[in-house]
């Protein structure tokens, strides 16, 4: 960890002098470790790769835009960690609030969601299968459990080894993602 602190500190200092190669290398290394951290911390929200990348970019932008305010007599990694933690908590709050509005449905309303909306506009089961296969593995599992196997969220949670709340959040996000994919597919055809 000392080696990384030294390397990144020198890269930030080099950035202050206008040397961009070291600075960019630092940002690449930093974003790799960010991906791991975000995936771990926000696992319960079932983020897709694209959404995870959004959070990575938010942290990078936060660090880059405020790079002049880092006091180079102080350790860099605690500074980065505090900013990272703030952005992760902020994202979780926004995404959680989004999903929370939709997770207080009865089991019957949940199964109705499978009948309307996404599915009605599509009369070809193969199209649906193709769209579902574009979701992340976790989201596919949730959609298959609830829509294809007719599980209630609780049963799906039991089957998949997740909490019921996580299943509801993931299912809501899957529907949003499927709608988006359908729009894209619709534009292409």
């Amino acid at each position: 960890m000392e080696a990384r602190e030294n390397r990144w500190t020198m890269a930030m200092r080099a950035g202050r002098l206008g040397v961009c190669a070291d600075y960019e290398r630092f940002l690449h290394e930093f974003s790799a470790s960010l991906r791991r951290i975000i995936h771990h911390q926000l696992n319960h929200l079932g983020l897709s790769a694209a959404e995870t990348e959004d959070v990575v970019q938010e942290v990078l932008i936060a660090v880059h835009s405020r790079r002049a305010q880092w006091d180079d007599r102080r350790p860099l990694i605690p500074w980065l960690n505090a900013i990272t933690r703030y952005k992760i908590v902020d994202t979780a709050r926004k995404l959680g609030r989004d999903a929370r509005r939709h997770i207080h449905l009865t089991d019957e309303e949940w199964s109705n969601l499978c009948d309307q909306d996404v599915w009605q506009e599509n009369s070809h089961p193969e199209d649906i299968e193709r769209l579902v296969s574009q979701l992340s593995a976790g989201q596919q599992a949730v959609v298959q459990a609830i829509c294809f196997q007719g599980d209630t969220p609780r049963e799906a949670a039991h089957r998949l080894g997740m909490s019921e709340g996580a299943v509801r959040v993931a299912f809501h996000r899957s529907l949003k993602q499927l709608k988006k994919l359908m729009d894209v597919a619709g534009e292409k055809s």
Partner: protein
Amino acid sequence: MRDPAGNNNPQLATDMLIARMGQEISQSPEPSRPLNTMLANGVLLALAVAIVVVLFLARPRADLVSVWTSWAVQFKVFGMLLLIGGGIRMLWAASIPGVAIKPALALLPAVLFLAAGAAFDSTGFPMLGTHALAVPACVGTILAAALAPMWILLTTLRRGIPTDLRRAGAVAGMLAGALAALAYTLACVNDGAGFVGLWYSFAIAVTGALGAFIGPKALAW
């Protein structure tokens, strides 16, 4: 944030973002921008505004010049200065990611001083003041005089990098209250250490709680 090409590989978009950041670095390198001047200016401005509000809401006490060197008034002033000192240190920490100061340590000198003064108060000054409106006038004036300074301190914090918004808000509120209380010593005629220890602290606790409440909304970035 995502371009069409990045749809299948989101990391491509991040790579492009990093390349743009590198370009920015070589085109306009930014030297360091220290925080301390900004904080100092914010605190001084907040104090000045607090004094103006106090003088607007309450006249300076008639005997100000003669009692200024008395133990009673010096106790108030020194107690508030100790609180302000601790508050400034906490404000500084709240605007830097990765730095946390134990509030207990920063505020301990002030708390000990005020508590000791209150415990050994031999003036016999009543805890509820000499008339019915003494407490509401004191607490109310401090609260009113703390509002604009709180806004100034929150604005100052936003120019730093607050990462614990509730704590940062609480610090801004508490420091604003202490600055307002210091300004209020110009007008306050309640000269009992027990009264001051209790009611000034109460007012400052209220401003601290208010700051903690609005912190997450006011400081989000």
